[in-house]
Structure formats: structure tokens, C-alpha cells
């Protein structure tokens, strides 16, 4: 199956959105989506890390693990790559880009345990993407994740002062709004499909 990378890019933003159709990265999505500015920074950090880790994992998987028959070790290798990459990025921007560090720095440790990052690498292996497809998939997923968390933050700011049934406050209402967003995103499903 040879799908155009451009199609994969747009599909992973709209029709196969990481949060709304694959439920990945929900933990930080629920916890951090209360303010547009913070969620935008987190989204950027996720996109950045996703783009690079997908690339690194692709190279490691196809040139080291698969030829040696060690494909079953991929969980350990992927999570180590992600953790190491995040650590590295944190050190580099702490040293050279101080402004950026204050914007993104606090989110970087959170990203290691963001299931979206590991999920994209695993999907890439399962769906057997080639090099360009993987890059498009990684970047598109990151942008899709950012799009939904920013939209969510916007909606949550709007409803901040509205009355919500007791017991549904906090995570409950966030999940319901996410459900409505997922419903809306089903409307995109006619455009492109990659599954």
C-alpha cells in the first residue's frame, strides 16, 4: 500500500487525529488544556519531539533492529530513544536558548510519558510506512494534537464561568467536550482516509 505522504500528513491532522480518533496523549490533554497559551507551547513541544523521534526511531528500526531480527525489542528501544531525546533537547535549549526554555522547558519532562509520541512510532511500524510517509505522519500527528488541544483550551476558557452539573466539573465536562469535538471531526472523514 503506497499512500502519498501529503495525504498521510493531512489525514493525521484531521481524519486520524491522535486525540480524537486514537485517544493518544489524553493524560496531558485533560490536565493542561485550561489555557490557550500554555497549550500552544505544549503543542509545539509535542510536534517538535514527535517529528524528530519518529525520524530517529524509523532509522533505528529499519536499519538496526529489523535486520538483526530484534524487532520485538522495539518497545524498550523506542521508549529509551524518546526519553534520551527529550533529555537532550532539554539540555540544549537550557544552555543556548533561554527564552525558549522558559516557554517549553517545563513541558519537556511531561512529553516522555505522553502516549502520543510512543504511539506514533508504533503505528509507523505496524502500518509499514516508508521514510517520507513516516516523517509526514510524525509531523501531521503533532500538528493534529496541537490543533485539538488549542481548540479545547479555547472552548474551556469560554465555558469557565458557566454552570456545570456538580460532579461533572473538571475532567468530566472536558471528556464530554472532547466527545463533541470528535463528533465534529468525523465530518472530515470523507476527505482522506489512511486506515
Amino acid at each position, binding site marked *: 500500500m503506497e499512500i502519498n505522504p501529503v495525504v498521510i500528513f493531512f489525514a493525521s491532522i484531521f481524519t486520524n487525529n491522535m486525540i480524537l480518533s486514537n485517544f493518544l496523549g489524553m493524560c496531558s490533554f485533560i490536565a493542561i488544556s485550561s489555557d490557550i497559551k500554555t497549550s500552544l507551547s505544549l503543542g509545539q513541544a509535542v510536534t517538535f519531539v514527535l517529528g524528530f523521534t519518529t525520524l530517529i526511531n524509523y532509522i533505528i528500526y529499519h536499519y538496526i533492529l529489523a535486520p538483526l531480527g530484534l524487532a520485538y525489542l522495539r518497545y524498550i528501544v523506542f521508549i529509551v530513544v524518546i526519553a534520551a531525546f527529550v533529555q537532550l533537547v532539554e539540555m540544549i535549549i537550557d544552555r543556548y536558548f533561554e527564552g525558549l526554555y522558559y516557554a517549553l522547558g517545563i513541558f519537556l519532562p511531561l512529553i516522555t510519558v505522553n*502516549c502520543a509520541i510512543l504511539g506514533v512510532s508504533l503505528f509507523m511500524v505496524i502500518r509499514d510506512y516508508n521514510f517520507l510517509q513516516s516523517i509526514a505522519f510524525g509531523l501531521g500527528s503533532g500538528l493534529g494534537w496541537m490543533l485539538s488541544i488549542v481548540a479545547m483550551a479555547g472552548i474551556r476558557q469560554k465555558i469557565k464561568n458557566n454552570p456545570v452539573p456538580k*460532579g461533572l466539573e473538571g475532567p468530566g465536562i472536558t471528556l464530554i467536550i472532547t466527545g463533541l469535538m470528535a463528533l465534529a471531526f468525523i465530518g472530515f472523514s470523507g476527505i482522506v482516509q489512511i486506515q
Partner: protein
Amino acid sequence: MNKKVKKIITLGIWEDNAIFRQILGICSALAVTNLMMNSLVMGLGLMFVTAFSELTVSLIRQFTPKHIRMMVQTLIISAYVIIVDIFLKAYYPSISEALGPYVGLIITNCIIMGRCESFAQKNPPLYSFLDGLASGAGYAIILMLIAFVRELLGFGSLFGYPVLGDAWVSWTLMIMPPGAFFMLAIVIWISKNIFKENSEQGGAKS
């Protein structure tokens, strides 16, 4: 001794239930709950991984340097997840295919990491093992509950056996992503109402 065991079990399954009390590990809770069978396998897999990771973390807790303990925990968890994955691939290939990457995503399930860090790091191995079983069971029960409603309404069946008959028009929305979000929200809502008295007496638990 028995009292402590009992306390660990009730805390894990009910009072500190990972999903509706702490909102942890919901990624997979949403993704695999469209079929009862998938949820059961996922729940059992998570119980296995949590219990044995906690056991291992607890056994080596005195020898692990403090600053690299997160990395050690992640590696331990990954090792057990690989065991689960290989086991499923060998004996239940169709379920392994249906679960796809979500078996691997047990690694980033915050429940396991959370229990290892907060419980296994401070308690003896046997208690940690029990705690892992209990937390995993609490997670599995909620998964089954959500899957029960979703499969019943979405396919009209339970564990693949049709129960609602031909007259039932499948409510497709329930097996699509939005159904999962709504169901989980309802579960949280109900549980918050049940626990309302407790939290009002004892103050807000974080």
C-alpha cells in the same frame, strides 16, 4: 497483616481507582473498550504488568540510585510489556492484531508508573505485588464496564455473542470515538456522585 492486605485491595479496586478517582491511564481505557474481549485481555495484561513491575521495583528498591530510578522503572515495565506482547502474538494472534499498538502503549500508561513510584518504592515486595494486582483489577473492572455498554449498544452483542437479537439497530456512534468519550464522562460523573459524601467529610483528595 490481614488488615493491611484488605486495605490495599479495597484502595486499589475501589477507593483509589485509577480511572475514575485519579483520571490516569485513560488513553487505553478509551481505545480498546469497543469490544468486551479486547478490554478483558487488555485488563489482564495490565494487571500482569503492574503486579510484576511493582514486585521487581520493590525487590531492587534498595539498590537503585535515586536519580535514575525513573529510567529503571520504565525499563522494567517495558520488559514485562514485551512478555505480554509476545505471549499474545503467539497464542491469540487475532486479539493481538485488534489491540495493535495499544499493548505497547501499556508502557506509557501512567497507572503503572504512578504505582511503582508511589507504592512499590516504599513497601516490601509482597505488598507491592498485591497492590499491583488490585490497581490492575480496578482498571480492568472499569474497562469491562465501559466495554459492556459500548458493545451492547454498538453491536448488540456481548463477547461476540448476539444478545439483543435482529430487531436491535446497532448504535454505531457508541463504537466510534465519541461514544468512548461520553461513556467515560458518565462513569466519572456517577462515581463522583457516589463519592461525594466521602470527599466532603475528608476534604478534597488530590
